[in-house]
């Protein structure tokens, strides 16, 4: 069926049904086209006003309405663009305001997802009836892109359900089902079929000919009162602290939304609408919104669309995966694979270990059952897909082998060689390594084209990223199949090329390494940890070492040294501080969190205190500007990322940005390790600051080539 815009059909019962079906786009969105469609509907209703009883908005698409059109926002970040955005916003608002006062009842018959602007349209209607289906999700995702719902979404939500209930839907970007939205008061009614929904809508129209928005009725009071009602005032005084605990003050959107929630209650309806718009415009101009839209919207979409996947290869489906090694990583990978409905052979050297791995999956599922997020049946279905094994014969039907044994080159090579005879000839071999070069490992397989790295992060059941590492000989088909598998298990793939430490381990190590440079210089360790948090890193470099375990880092260091000798390289140099300190700490018995001793001392009550020995060893009296600590930690990661681009380990900014945010929690508000440069103020500002860091703190901050040339390599 070809799309026709907004189809207006006035029935003999006097009800006009507007079916939204915008031309040349898969979903309905708020853009210039929408303005003219809505304008036509409004004039038609006014023309027919004497003979119609009401209006119903519904959709011909799979979704009801997808929201604001990000394309209208991104195109360019110039003054004229801001003017256009403001103009569009005000037009949308004027139309919705006209709709809610048009003189006949207006019902939103929500037959699919209504997100952001789509739900704001619903809020301008007098009644919201949602179809109870899996597809019907409602909510305000704007905050996740650094924006706020600016088509009256905040103002109307607060006036509809009050301040207290508005926090979660507006500030957390949560999606609600029709039923949840009903309980929250965001919709008025839930229908189980489309016919029921339309009939209910008509029924309501016939019975409520004088319908009006409650907030436009004289004597209206906001449920729960305005911002200065005692309960609200109390919540709003703690609100900013609660927000900042999460955002460290680095994300302006939640703060702005909180402000609009509060301030919109302290003035008239039209003024509240302007308050909302003015905060929106402020956010729109923020580097954070630019960063989030770039990375979390556009680049995330590129990854979903397979931009880093080899083209011209049919989409593949993985049916059976064999996982070698039922340790921490192996069992986690088994869990996420089975959860996606893929059969799993979980093989270990003995059946008992393999069974323990399955037990681990059962525990994860049991936790979800007890919290009501999983049904017994589904859990059993998932578990029935996991086959513990100690027998190589069980590998024969697998499409994909994921080797997740200890990081030992000879062990892995031996295992690959020994296992190959049992494999299906089409199977591809993925190694879950974070250290060993894919080129070396692939020597274990007679056909290196079928060898690839699939680096999961720990714990695999929670970490969303998988770093796919292509060896020199890895075929496009192998890459495509690995990519499709990662998508199949609903994780986010990035594709990088083989190189020591690949991308994520290499750069993450530099973050830690820079923290330790400062420790060695005698900078106060507490200051370093706090600066890391102020920078937006989830965990400070010292705390993260304890979590990863210093013992593990020491072992990785040994492996890297051996690799350096074998390959005639000097990779160890970039993580020299990390390796030296890991050895030193382990020698003192401070090998990490598991032994309750690392850079911190850990206590039975779950608390931790920084180990006083650090200051005894290093002083902690050296004074450097706090901002230098922050920038050293961040720039070290960014310059190393640029080095990865230079070395062709990275071939796109999306892989760099997404990989950094989801791989090791690089601060999302910057848009990731490459977009950071834009967020920081552009290439010139970045280069000025980087030169300062080179001058003050050393050649680690040097780039291997000019910034422009490096970025040109990835088309930036």
């Amino acid at each position, binding site marked *: 069926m070809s799309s026709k815009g907004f189809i207006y059909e006035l029935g003999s019962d006097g009800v006009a049904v507007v079916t939204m079906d915008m031309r040349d786009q898969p979903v309905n969105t708020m853009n210039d086209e929408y303005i003219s469609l809505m304008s036509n509907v409004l004039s038609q209703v006014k023309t027919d006003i004497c003979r119609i009883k009401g209006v119903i908005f519904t959709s011909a698409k799979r979704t009801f309405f997808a929201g604001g059109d990000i394309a209208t926002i991104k195109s360019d970040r110039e003054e004229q663009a801001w003017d256009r955005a403001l103009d569009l916003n005000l037009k949308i608002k004027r139309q919705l305001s006209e709709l809610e006062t048009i003189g006949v009842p207006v019902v939103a018959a929500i037959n699919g997802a209504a997100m952001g602007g789509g739900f704001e349209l619903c809020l301008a209607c007098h009644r919201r009836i949602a179809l109870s289906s899996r597809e019907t999700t409602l909510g305000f995702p704007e905050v996740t892109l650094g924006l706020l719902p600016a088509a009256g979404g905040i103002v109307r939500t607060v006036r509809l359900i009050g301040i207290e209930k508005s926090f979660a839907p507006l500030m957390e970007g949560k999606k609600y089902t029709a039923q949840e939205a009903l309980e929250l008061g965001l919709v008025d009614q839930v229908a189980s079929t489309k016919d029921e929904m339309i009939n209910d809508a008509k029924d309501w129209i016939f019975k409520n000919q004088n319908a009006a928005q409650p907030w436009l009725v004289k004597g209206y009071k906001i449920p729960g009162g305005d911002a200065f009602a005692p309960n609200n005032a109390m919540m709003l*005084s703690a609100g*900013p*602290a609660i927000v*900042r*605990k999460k955002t460290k003050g680095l994300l302006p959107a939640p703060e702005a939304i*909180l*402000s609009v929630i509060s301030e919109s209650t302290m003035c008239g309806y039209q003024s509240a609408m302007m308050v909302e718009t003015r905060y929106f415009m402020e956010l729109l101009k923020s580097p954070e919104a630019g960063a989030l839209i770039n990375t979390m919207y556009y680049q995330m979409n590129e990854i979903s669309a397979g931009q880093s996947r080899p083209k011209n290869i049919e989409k593949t489906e993985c049916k059976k995966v064999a996982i070698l090694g039922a340790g921490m990583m192996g069992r986690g990978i088994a869990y996420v694979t089975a959860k996606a409905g893929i059969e799993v052979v979980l093989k270990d050297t003995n059946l008992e270990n393999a069974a323990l791995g399955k037990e681990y999956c059962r525990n994860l599922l049991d936790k979800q059952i007890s919290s009501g997020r999983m049904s017994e049946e589904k859990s059993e279905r998932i578990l029935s897909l996991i086959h513990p094994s100690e027998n190589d014969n069980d590998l024969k039907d697998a499409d994909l082998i994921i080797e997740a044994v200890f990081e030992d080159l000879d062990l892995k090579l031996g295992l690959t060689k020994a296992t190959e005879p049992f494999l299906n000839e089409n199977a591809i071999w993925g190694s879950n390594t974070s250290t060993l070069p894919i080129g070396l490992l692939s020597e274990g397989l007679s056909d290196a084209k079928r060898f690839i790295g699939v680096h999961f992060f720990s714990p695999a059941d929670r970490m969303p990223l998988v770093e796919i590492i292509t060896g020199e000989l890895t075929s496009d088909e192998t890459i495509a199949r690995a990519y499709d598998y990662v998508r199949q298990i609903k994780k986010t793939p990035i594709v990088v090329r083989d190189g020591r430490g690949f991308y994520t381990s290499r750069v993450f190590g530099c973050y830690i390494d820079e923290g330790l440079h400062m420790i060695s210089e005698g900078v*106060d360790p*507490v200051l370093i940890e706090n600066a890391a948090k*102020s920078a937006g890193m989830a965990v400070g470099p010292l705390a993260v070492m304890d979590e990863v375990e210093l013992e593990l880092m020491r072992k990785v260091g040994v492996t890297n040294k051996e690799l350096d000798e074998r390959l005639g390289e000097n990779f160890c140099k970039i993580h020299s501080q990390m390796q030296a300190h890991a050895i030193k700490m382990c020698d003192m018995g401070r090998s990490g969190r598991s032994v309750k001793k690392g850079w911190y001392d850990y206590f039975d009550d779950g608390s931790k205190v920084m180990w006083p020995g650090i200051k005894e060893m290093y002083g902690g009296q050296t004074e450097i500007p706090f901002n230098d600590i922050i920038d050293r930690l961040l720039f070290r990661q960014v310059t190393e990322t640029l080095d990865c681009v230079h070395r062709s380990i990275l071939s796109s900014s999306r892989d760099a940005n997404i990989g950094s945010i989801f791989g090791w929690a690089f601060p999302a508000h910057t848009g990731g390790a490459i977009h950071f440069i834009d967020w920081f103020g552009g290439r010139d500002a970045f280069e000025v600051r980087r030169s300062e860091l080179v001058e003050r703190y050393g050649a680690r901050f040097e780039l291997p080539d000019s910034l422009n040339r490096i970025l040109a390599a990835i088309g930036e």
Partner: protein
Amino acid sequence: MTTEAIIYDAVRTPRAKGKADESLNEVKPVDLMAGLLTSIEARQSLDPSRVGDVILGCAGPLAEQGGAIGKTAAMVAGWPDSVSGMQLDRYCGSGLEAINIAAMKVMCGLESLAVGGGVESMSHVPIGIGGSAWVSDPAISTQTEYIPQGISADLIATIDGYSRNDVDQVALSSQSRAVNARKKGYFKSVVPVVDKAGRTILAEDAFIKPDTTMDILGGLKPSFVKAGAMGFDDLAIAKYPRLASINHVHTPGNSSGIVDGASAVLIGNETVGNELGLKGRGRIVSMANVSTERLIMLTGPAPAARKAIKQAGLTFDDIDLFEVNEAFASVVLRFIRETGVDPEKVNVNGGAIAMGHPLGATGGILIGTVLDELERRGARYGLCALCIGAGMGIATVIERI
């Protein structure tokens, strides 16, 4: 300064816990205040028509305490229409600010006689109930780095390294000194609160806990752990990144009590005193306002004291007695550390930890308390200082006559 501002009288109500059904809860805030005005009139056989202005501090100037309560109280006290009145809010510094302004009016010749003081019925108008842009408006509180005072007090303790034991010692000392002073009748400025029939409702400070011990104090739970965990600790640490955590040492036992109370100080020039036969008890020597770092907030008293002392041409050694409002124990410890004064000269008869801090009234209470004690000891100079929201501080130096 051309004219001296002379203190002719200083009175206060006793203080009682500021909660429903406690002894002063049945008394309206205006009545608390009017009772003091009436008592000054009686004690001094004062012709109230000679009073030009009644300036009152009140940190919760709304509802019953709203609307220029100085004027309302003057009318309720039966003072003539010619007496003007106002209310001002400088948070906890309101009462002392009111006295300072009354003194300034006298000094500059604008008034010959005025009342300064304050009133706060915290049982009627609970602290913070009205909200404010600073505290309740998310955009403003974010921009201005608002954190609750208790977190600031704990922040001072963390930075200075005051242990729970250190702050509890301050509390114990406040209690034992207050018990002693009350028993020996040192609080001459206390005027009983009476009902319309003239019967006493409360005659003495009721908030003091004579049986307190270090064990009891040590057993109290810290008050600001929860607020800290909500995110306020993180805000404090973001500003003071050398701290790994905030040490929450303040409890209801070592923080000022929430109480009901009022104070009034009669200030005038020498001429009016002679004319009315009033006996001068002290003179206002100097006064100062300062403002310090907003987030740590409670560090104003020492710099305010320094400024006022300098203004008076004196040194810390010249001051015989210091009244530093015990908003929190760490505030007093910080004052002592920063000024180096002898702790035996500070809050010698206890303070707000033992007797309570009726926000806007406290400044006037401190003036009365220090004046009583200067007279008892025959000493000369006293200094009153308070920490104030958002980092401010206020101090006044007085001299016994």
